[in-house]
């Protein structure tokens, strides 16, 4: 799926000059995404039906199939983070490490206030989103921007795909702690 998003991104770039508004661009983006997924599905099924053994195609089938039944949205996002145990009081070492990651990799687009810059301001983000959602989004942005309803809605609002900033799970957890601190938790 990462590959698909990447392709869509490129296709979308090359079409940019012909497109008048970002809204229509976004629609095109979605349309292309769907088209590519269905093409993969058809191709994948064809390979499967012909007894093909191409593992990559098989994987595409698998990933699109799991997507087929309407998934119940638990608002935790999509990714490796299933459950986060929040601890009290805040771990100040983690808050400090999270702030370092923020300064290096996040601050170019996110303010610590409510103000939207490229992406939304972080104030009260821990009230709006579940901790799992925050960690999944910061470690698995590409997949979530194509599958997670909340992330997709944000993309429509901000119009810029949040980049993969190569955060480890530990980085992401530290950033979460920093966000909690930013939201006034002690």
């Amino acid at each position, binding site marked *: 799926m990462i590959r698909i998003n990447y392709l869509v991104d490129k296709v979308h770039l090359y079409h940019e000059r012909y497109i008048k508004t970002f809204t229509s661009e976004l629609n095109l983006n979605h349309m292309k995404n769907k088209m590519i997924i269905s093409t993969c599905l058809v191709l994948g099924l064809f390979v499967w039906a012909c007894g093909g053994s191409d593992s990559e195609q098989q994987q595409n089938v698998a990933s699109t199939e799991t997507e087929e039944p309407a998934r119940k949205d638990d608002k935790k996002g999509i990714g490796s983070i299933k459950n986060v145990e929040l601890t009290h009081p805040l771990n100040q070492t983690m808050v400090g490490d999270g702030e370092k990651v923020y*300064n290096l990799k996040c601050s170019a687009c996110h303010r610590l206030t409510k103000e939207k810059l490229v992406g939304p301001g972080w104030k009260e983000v821990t009230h709006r989103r579940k901790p799992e959602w925050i960690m999944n989004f910061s470690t698995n942005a590409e997949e979530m921007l194509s599958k997670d309803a909340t992330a997709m809605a944000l993309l429509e609002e901000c*119009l810029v795909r949040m980049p993969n900033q190569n955060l480890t799970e530990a980085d992401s957890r530290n950033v979460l702690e920093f966000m909690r601190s930013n939201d006034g938790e002690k």
Partner: protein
Amino acid sequence: MRKLKTINMINMLIMLFILIGVSVTSCKNKVKGNGADKDAASKVYVEPGKHDEFYNIVSGGFSGQMTVYGLPSGRLLRIIPVFSVDPTTGWGYSEETKPMLNTSHGMVPWDDSHHVALSLTNGTHDGRWAFINGNNTPRIARIDLKTFRTVEIIEIPNSSGNHSSPFITQNSEYVVAGTRFSYPMDDDNSNPDVPISSYKQNFKGTVSFINIDPKTGNMGVGFQVLLPGFNFDLARAGKLKSGDWVFFSCYNTEQANTLLEVNASQKDKDFIMAVNWKKCEELVKAGKATVKKVKYAHNSYSEITHSGKSDMITEVKMLDPKQYEGLVYFIPCPKSPHGCDVDPTGSYIVGSGKLAAIIPVFSFDKMLKAIAAKTYEGNFEGIPVLKYDAVLHGEVKKPGLGPLHTEFDGKGNAYTSFFVSSEIVKWNIEKLEVLDRVPTFYSVGHLSVPGGPTNKPWGKYVIAYNKITKDRYLPTGPELTQSAQLYSIDGDKMKLLLDFPTTGEPHYAEAIPAELIEKNSVKIFKLEENKNPYVTMGEGQAKVVRKGNEVHVYMTAIRSHFTPDNIEGVKMGDVVYFHLTNLEQDWDVPHGFAVKGASNAELLVMPGETQTLKWIPERVGVSPMYCTDFCSALHQEMSGYIRVSPAGSNVPLKFSTGVTEPAAVSSVK
């Protein structure tokens, strides 16, 4: 309909070709025809989105660069800047990469790169590094195959025309370098002012052994061997039983210094030179080498500081083989030998005399016997010359015209390129019998079998690197594309599968299975590890600092803005350094940087990397700067302005990005 016509035409051409091919026996390849097998397309078709089976790492010739193609598709994957500046990426222009092109002659922005050598472990490809020679200003470069970037360039002292280079020993102990052009060297190995006609008295040659650190790959000039003045052309290291030796082809043993075309073609035989590098190494370790005063540059690039540095080195160890027996022997080889290739078993050395009507194959075992029995026919300036017949395994009779280079398939067969008769000839090494021949279009120079120079060739294909394309492609004026041709060698008969255009002029190339390299490919540079002295670790650190008349802009790039993107307070007479850090940490998201009127280059900065562009404003006014690498939907918005005021004006230094960024002032005296 059109397709049918084309197929008919192709069939007709094939028929025509076969007919003419049958009737003409000697000057075979004047025939026009596409020469390809009927089902060729299916054998080179790589589905969109699928990867090739081999990387083909090709020298750029007069371009000075290295190019990378996928095989069997022939798709161009990358041009790696090596010896020549590249304003597209900033190579040789950014402050960080400038030291890489430094030499004892100062900054040299170009070279002529001829031969590729891939690193070996136990005589087989290990996929770590590629080496390439600079022919004009003698140098060897090392390219890291994790990043496909040039990480080291070493200049070769006491050398001119570094052609027989960088051929590699079987465990990457050394790459070699030999002087194509001998030149005057006196006792201090300087280049004294003497008449050119004093060639025989004053001119000398050297071969250098450049050691390679087994862990880091770092190069150093291990030692040099002082030799008679003539031309050293190509080389190959021995393998397995001959692994302690390196063989060099030599021409112009006539020692001519003018009209070499005629004057260096007088003798019936020139030499293949055998050098026992193991013995040389032992002598050097035992302190037997003389230390000579020289001056050469050693440049290395760090992917942690993202910066190159250039050190000037002043000494080299030199061995004189006249003083020690057993180091160097000459083997007579007919007619100005060019290629000098060792078969995968290490038993045979194939010499290719450019003007010879035969291919001599020498036996390593016989060479050792001849050395032991001192079966000499004489000596050349004190170095023993072995007897031709005592070393010869046999001659391939009537192989073709103008043999140049030989590669191997590991099944007992050799493939020799013939420039004059424009063909590749397959022959059996033991029996010396010609087995097959195919035309090339046209005038093949080097050729390459994947793993062909190693102990265990991967086989499957032979690629011809041609000097002339003439009518093979759409014409593009007087200057035509260079080309390569891919042939299948799976069966008994070689079959042409594909022509593909190449950049520069391809000389030697190697091909290596993709799986040995692909898995190690670096996707990003980690920001946390960036130790460039001018890195901006996060947008909050972005700043503009004045130091006298230098203005240092610590700038960040991320989709889709620069910080700062408004800069004021620069004055005429200032020198501006843009230190751009790409904050992206995702694969395939470089950012570019250009500023109007920059007389040097743009920058292309990889994720996590910092690069610096020097800009000297030459007029007052506001200049735009922008990202040159299409990075996102809002790429067109990724831009900014820098204001240049008259000298002596009192506009304060200011920088900002966006309305939310409070304008700040920084002034360091």
